């Protein structure tokens, strides 16, 4: 699996997480998805997700995309 192939797999995982929280009000859902990614994803997976997002984030659904953006914002602030 190349880095190019790994991105879509992470997108699939993130979208799955997003679906569990989708019934929640948007800010709560986004926060919970971001929290899940922080708590359970190795930093390199999050980094690759951010990299994938920078390249357009194709296939990433709205809520997980917002969650990844939130993590990206935090990374910038740090």
């Amino acid at each position, binding site marked *: 699996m190349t880095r190019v*192939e*790994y991105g879509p797999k992470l997108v*699939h995982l993130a979208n*799955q997480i997003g679906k*569990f929280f989708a019934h929640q009000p948007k800010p709560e859902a986004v926060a919970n998805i971001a929290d899940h990614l922080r*708590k359970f994803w*190795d930093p*390199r997976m999050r980094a690759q997700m951010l990299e994938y997002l920078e390249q357009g984030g194709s296939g990433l659904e709205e809520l997980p995309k917002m969650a990844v953006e939130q993590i990206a914002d935090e990374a910038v602030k740090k």
Partner: protein
Amino acid sequence: MALIEEIDYGTKLVQIGKTVTLTIDGQTACVPEGTSILRAATEIGTQIPKLCATDMVSAFGSCRLCLVEIEGRAGTPASCTTPVAEGMVVHTQSERLARLRRGVMELYISDHPLDCLTCSANGNCELQTMAGAVGLREVRYGMDGANHLQARKDVSNPYFQFDPAKCILCSRCVRACEEVQGTFALTIAGRGFASVVSPGMEEEFLSSECVSCGACVQACPTATLMEKSVLDMGQPEHSVVTTCAYCGVGCAFKAEMRGENVVRMVPFKDGKANHGHSCVKGRFAWGYATHRDRALKPMLREKTSDPWREVSWEEAIAYAATEFKRIQAQYGKGAIGGISSSRCTNEEAYLVQKMVRAAFGNNNTDTCARVCHSPTGYALSSTFGTSAGTQDFDSVELCDVILVVGANPTDAHPVFASRMKKRLREGAKLIVIDPRRIDLVRMPHVEASVHLALQPGTNAAVLDAIAHVIVTEHLSDEAFVRERCEVDSYMRWALFVAEERNSPEAVEKISGVPAGLIRQAARLYATGGNAAIYYGLGVTEHSQGSTTVMALANLAMATGNIGREGVGVNPLRGQNNVQGSCDMGSFPHELPGYRHISNLAVRQSFEADWGVTLDHEPGLRIPNMIDCALEGSFKGIYIQGEDIAQSDPDWQHITAGLSAMECVVVQDLFLNETAKYAHVFLPGSTFLEKDGTFTNAERRIQRVRKVMTPKGGYQDWEVTQLLSQAMGHAMHYNHPSEIMDEIARLTPAFAGVSYEKLDKLGSVQWPCNEAMPEGTPVMHVPGFVRGKGRFFVTEYVPTDERTGLRFPLLLTTGRILTQYNVGTQTRRTSNVDWHSEDLLEVHPNDAEHRGIKDGAWVRLESRSGATTLRTMITERVAPGVVYTTFHHPETMANVVTTDYSDWATDCPEYKVTAVQISPAGGSAGTLNAGRMLEKQLRSEQA
């Protein structure tokens, strides 16, 4: 050391009832009302001769040896069937009783071979002992009359023989099969002199319904039913209590030994999980421990294409450590990791994660629970506050309704299933939710009230529909919810499940389950009294595994079926130490005791104890490790007691990942499938070769005790310690008890656990701490561990694995009684006599459409790959569903399964794979033909 002799009290313990005082041979006995005179006498140390009585079954009163005299009563009643009474005066010895007993014994012996000196039971035969006890000196009838001495032996069972010549027709075996095991495979056929113990319809044991649990052998007072290992080796001379290394029931056994050789494994009556019962695996299938396939020398090879080279332990450990250090220097600290095993001890799992965190300097530690019950951990932690089942096994005796979801206890957890069946025979109601008609749906004396045969992948939808009925028909326990749960979360959940799209009628279209049955199940669960949920991998191994466990927790909370005996949410753990390996911090995101690695205070406590700085970020899970190996950032792995090339999904992906690594270290009993991709092989040790503890599905911590020297030289924990030292992190444990002391020091739920306490009490269930010094049988009694129970909205999300024109069938997987997991152990025992290959169950309609006949070879193909196996045409599976087990590597079931996984935990979706089947015209030409050939060659060489 000596043999552990357990007292046989003759009849069962009566636990409740007012105390009755009586006199037996001048001694005072105080016992609960309802106790037999035989038991009361035994309890004060008075032995009454007996043969048909044993405390594992109900009294029968047939042998007439346990006769007594009771003042004021006529005759000589059997003490096993006569209950005590206040003020009763009993005499167990008199001239009349002695005469009667000798007469009975004479009759028995007149039709019994007098071959005591060469008999396998010599020295351990109740008939022999009783003959001595009653003073039998002659048999006046002679031995020339009609007898059974030439009766044919049944040696069909690989583990025990039946010699009817030695049978005294006490019916202990028949009653044990009925009452203890609940299989009803044995009966007394014929009448009078022609009476004989018969398996099934006068069949041989092997071909009968007998499940070889061993209860009959254990119950037999003579050599009629005898272990073949005793026939071969003789009677054992010492025994050691230890814990079975198969499923999550955690049966306690006496390993009965001659020197360092196991003669037999006998279930321990004082075992709190099994109460003296066993199954065919734990009781008999331990021969793998000394199997010729054991790999007992450390081995090395620089490339996996090279042949293995036997080396010293020092060289193997040094090579592994050097390679791991090189990889870290070249690719980064996070480029290596480790996997522990749920088959190993708590102490070994603890050391693996400690080595990864402290010596490797990262959190890339995971365990095989990833692929089975990781959703249980996530979901029960989220809802209740702790990652474990809520009850002890004894709790089942107080159930009124038992809901079995995605589990097949009679095959996978047979000893607990026997307890469950007993409760069902007593009148408890059963609901089964499973795509397949498992045995519990209808078997002798057990029938489910409702069977929801849902489409694989629709668990969450069906459970939401059950919740819909409970909420819309106002069957919730609102007082419980108000007092014990987060009311806001309940309201949100109740509104969600009440929506029309979650009604049974709507869900019928998704799941294929008639709405009426869903309503029936919901009403029964909510209103039938104490309702308990037991679930297995049919719940967790889905893309919505965590969601489904949450849905089960929601049901329990909404109906108040949690926090007392007889209720609860109970994961049936697949392997012996799934619970323990999770407790020990094996997951990459949490330290022992389920505390997140980002928790500064917790991390600091470990840092202070271990003298290192710990990474605060979660590490890689097993699937992530494989992905990152292919992506290029993960290059080395230490795998203890796990065979990911056979057990993890999407074989091509797993093996490609392993092939991409530069140093794979496998520590195992055998050169398993994963070892084909390894550079270093380290011999593992069996449960018989090590000290430690296992924690079963009811959180019960039990001792594992070494009964033989490790055949490879080291216990598994010692190997991890050597590797850690070579990696630069010192470990100096002298005994696993010291590791447990460290666990207790650093883990609040284990604070009160020590080997000393385990030796004293036999076992404890965590939490075991200052508040609960002897452990906690039932959790969440005063309140949930997290405070208030939390409901979660469990929206049904269809799996991405869909059927279509190309792959129109759904494959689901499971286990069979005689085999265990990927078969590494059980395939190397005579259990293959029952199950020598994995079969594909196909519904007759699906078979007919494809021109497939019963027993024919078929090609099973999915998007991931294809394999070939033989069919069993059966209505156990619904049309559109096929089913197989995964015990044999040549079947390669994981070639077919996809890498879709649970959204929260990455637990693979083994239970739903879209497939097509087609006639294969024989096994040749299949993808796995090479493996079949390899197996055959190995077999021929052996």
